[in-house]
């Protein structure tokens, strides 16, 4: 999976491309680690080209959201395709992670 992180003003835009699973979850975790040190992070995650997420991916989103909220920031996942959204729906994570 390709991960791009860009800063646009006070906002951080993360673009995910491909599958998020056990083979690249650790890489994803370490790539986003610097975002957890931001003061009041404002993170948009563009999931347009994300084709799948495993439970490992859900756990990373969960821990990222927890850290962001603890710092008074916000994180929203955008443009999720129906296959990825279904993973969030059937696990109940659509109610936990902010998705638009």
């Amino acid at each position: 999976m390709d991960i791009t992180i860009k800063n646009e003003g006070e906002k951080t835009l993360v673009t995910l491309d491909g599958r998020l699973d056990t083979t690249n979850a650790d890489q994803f975790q370490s790539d986003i680690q610097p975002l957890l040190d931001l003061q009041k992070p404002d993170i948009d995650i563009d999931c347009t080209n994300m084709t799948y997420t495993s439970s490992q991916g859900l756990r990373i989103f969960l821990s990222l959201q927890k850290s962001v909220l603890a710092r008074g920031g916000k994180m929203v996942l955008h443009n999720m395709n129906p296959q990825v959204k279904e993973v969030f729906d059937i696990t109940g994570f659509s109610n936990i992670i902010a998705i638009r």
Partner: protein
Amino acid sequence: MHCEMILDEYRERQPIYNKIKDIVLDRLRSTLRDNNMVVTAIEGRVKTEHSLAGKLELKGSKYHTIDDITDIVGVRIITFFSDEVDKIAAMVERMFDIDWDNSVDKRKMLAIDRFGYMSLHYICRIPTSIYHDPEQPLLNELRFELQMRTALQHVWANMQHDTGYKSEVEIPMEYQRSLNRLAGILELADEQFSRIRKEINDYRRNVQSLVATGNFDEVPLNGDTFRSYCDLRPFQRLAEKIATINQAELYEDSPMPYYNILLRLGMKTIGDIERMRAECSDGAYQLALIQLAGTGLDIVAYSVALQNLCIVKILKLGYGTVGLTGMFSAIYGESAYNAQRAERIYQQALRSGLVLNDHHPETETSAS
């Protein structure tokens, strides 16, 4: 001349007065926090030299020394409710040394046919048990004034101050009468707020006891009762069963987003949810089995149990895809995806026998 001496002494003591104010504010804030008491505001000030000079000019002969002036340091606690003033007062009595001879309960000073300023004023000292610095004995010797009042009493006091009403002679009788009437309304409003809060608390306790004893049909469904019901973990067994499908971790989340769906489904009491749980648990598990088995997804949220119960209930009521779309839109907001998801679940339910007849959703009544 003696007023000049008092002002000189005031200037000299100013750092001590500021320190007293800071210590008192700090201790009050931490004690309120420790006792889970929420107030509208805590504020403190040291009287300005200008204000003190004005006071001395007006009533100078009343004060022989600066120690006779007890409100140079003033702290005020403003509560939401009138009954909280007494609770705060009890807390203050435990914290500080109270000079009872100079403390005034202005709430009890008014004649029965009078309304107006009502506040509790304590003249206090900081006891050495709270703060002690052998280098600064004055911190424990100087007195400060602590006012306790409700937010509405505070409004009244400020209004009184702004209009010059306190001096009474400065404004015509008709305005005094209007202000008195208003004071009566504020007092009544304070009383009503306290009474309503007490009634709500009594109601909540009663409902919690009905929920705890399992008298679910007697408990009307509302946000409060649903929360109390959720505290009993009614969906735990189903959620655990769903989690076993993939030996998944059960992630704790709140079922509250489904409260509005339950109302839309016409549920009136907690007993209605219990009946849905009894009727739809097998279907809710079946649905989870269809969706999760073979996916390897080994984390599920606790609320999935209630999500699936609602889906099955909607299908059993014959609301079909329109009902499901309405449910998803109510929870996640309007989106074309909701209809796709509803259709997918509907087809899954048809194949697994959760829905026996192929309804035409366009002609069905929507749960939304």
